[in-house]
């Protein structure tokens, strides 16, 4: 495979060699191969005019599916943002020297880590009002935001645990060494402990992100028009067995395409962390 480079005539410019290397790298890229596998039959069907009905219908529903996926991405991003902010606060309180505060955060973490996420999603959807009166105005409280909260609660409990675990995993000797150099407690936390924690937190945080993203599929059960909901509507509308099979395979592929890069990135960060 490398032969065409090693046997290249000496006169060949570096630009051509670079382009060849880039082409080979692209040819080995799994995403490119996937696109190719999809494009070949698509071109054949278009050229010969023999596109199967199920594929034609999928093409018709594709924009709706993408809008649905956009909703899943939106919910996962917001839930993780909210969950992380809340989780860091809870995690910080769980390290407090005051025992009652620690007990409170302990209860919070236990409650939301041990509740099925589906139950929490139902909980926030049906316990919270569908609109909130604020100073004479009536603000709508849409279902997808309730799902964001329903997912942010278990996310925050997990982030709190990840944070607490990371802080406590820093050896006490680091505190002692920093104290001996005259650092103040707040400086030690900010300059010595926290930076080391962030590295340790990154991989588990990304794992949580992937897991919360997959849980966004539950939004379809409370009437949010997400990817799963769109697929169900399409399947019922088209009412063809081959289309139903095709669209649920497409669903799997789309969730995979979103979550797999996250877990790949996690593994890469874990390897990099192991080196330092």
């Amino acid at each position, binding site marked *: 495979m490398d032969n065409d480079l090693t046997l290249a005539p000496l006169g060949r410019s570096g630009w051509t060699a670079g382009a060849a290397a880039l082409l080979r790298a692209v040819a080995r890229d799994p995403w490119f191969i996937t696109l190719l596998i999809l494009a070949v039959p698509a071109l054949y069907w278009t050229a010969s005019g023999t596109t199967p009905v199920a594929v034609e219908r999928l093409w018709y529903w594709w924009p709706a599916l993408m809008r649905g996926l956009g909703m899943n991405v939106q919910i996962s991003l917001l839930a993780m943002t909210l969950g992380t902010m809340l989780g860091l606060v809870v995690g910080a309180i769980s390290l407090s020297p005051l025992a009652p505060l620690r007990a409170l955060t302990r209860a919070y973490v236990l409650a939301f880590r041990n509740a099925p996420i589906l139950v929490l999603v139902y909980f926030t959807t049906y316990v919270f009002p569908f609109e909130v009166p604020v100073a004479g105005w009536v603000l709508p409280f849409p279902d997808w935001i309730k799902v964001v909260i329903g997912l942010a609660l278990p996310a925050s409990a997990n982030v709190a645990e990840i944070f607490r675990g990371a802080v406590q995993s820093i050896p006490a000797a680091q505190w002692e060494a920093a104290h*001996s150099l005259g650092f103040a407690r707040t400086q030690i936390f900010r300059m010595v402990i926290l930076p080391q924690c962030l590295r340790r937190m990154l991989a588990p945080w990304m794992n949580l992100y992937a897991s919360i993203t997959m849980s966004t599929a539950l939004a379809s059960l409370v009437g949010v028009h997400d990817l799963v909901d769109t697929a169900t509507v399409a399947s019922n509308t088209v009412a063809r067995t081959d289309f139903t099979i095709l669209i649920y395979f497409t669903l799997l592929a789309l969730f995979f395409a979103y979550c797999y890069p996250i877990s790949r990135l996690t593994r890469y960060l874990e390897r990099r962390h192991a080196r*330092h």
Partner: protein
Amino acid sequence: MPDTDSLVRLSNVHLAFGDTPVLNGIDISVRRGEAVSIIGPSGSGKSTILRCITGLLRPQQGGIRVGDVDVQALRRERDLIALRKRVGFVFQQYNLFPHMSVLENLVAAPIKVGGVPRARALARAHALLARVHMEHKAGAYPGELSGGQQQRVAIARALALEPELMLFDEVTSALDPEMVGEVLTVIRDLVSDGLTCVLVTHEMRFAEEVSDTVYFTEAGRIVESGPPAQLFGAPRNERTGAFLQRAAGGVPARRRSDPFDSLFSFDPLRLAV
């Protein structure tokens, strides 16, 4: 020994962890410019003594003075910080900050604690690295260094605040034998430069060679103290004699070997790795 020019003075220091007594009345005096070694069996409270001097541990009873500062009376964080700026501490396990490069490890405290301008802190850090023969590793991270190299960086880091007193807590105990020499060489240089040093050590030969005074501790008490020639040559207390005999016979070879032998020793297995 005149009290007036003593830099460190511990009198009748008692400390217990819970119900376990660790120090049972320690009296130590270190004069300015003096090198003092504390030897004794493991668990005799040697490291605890050092931690008390720099306020990392607070004894239940007794007096500790560093210069004209009463360490026992320090309650506010900023007073403890003022003390620790004057006292350098080197740990058995180096305890460098793993997320900072060697250079960052050296300039963090001068900049953030000492208020030294960054450019001056950097210049001083490079000079210190040269002093411990580590200037070629300024950009490296602690995880990329050998134990001996990390310990030399740790010594430079402790020196970065220009302390008037250095405390060394079994700084060679965690090292592979062939790295002990390079670290002891650095300490030997500091002592001969006249820096006041207190060493807790298991390196008997080294203690004998560099110290002005040696203290032998056992079970949280000073059993015997004196100039090294007397303490090692003709110990007055039979427990000191027994300990020195054990130390000479029963411990691993590296404790007894001359540091310079190991400095030039060659281990083909290490090259293979």
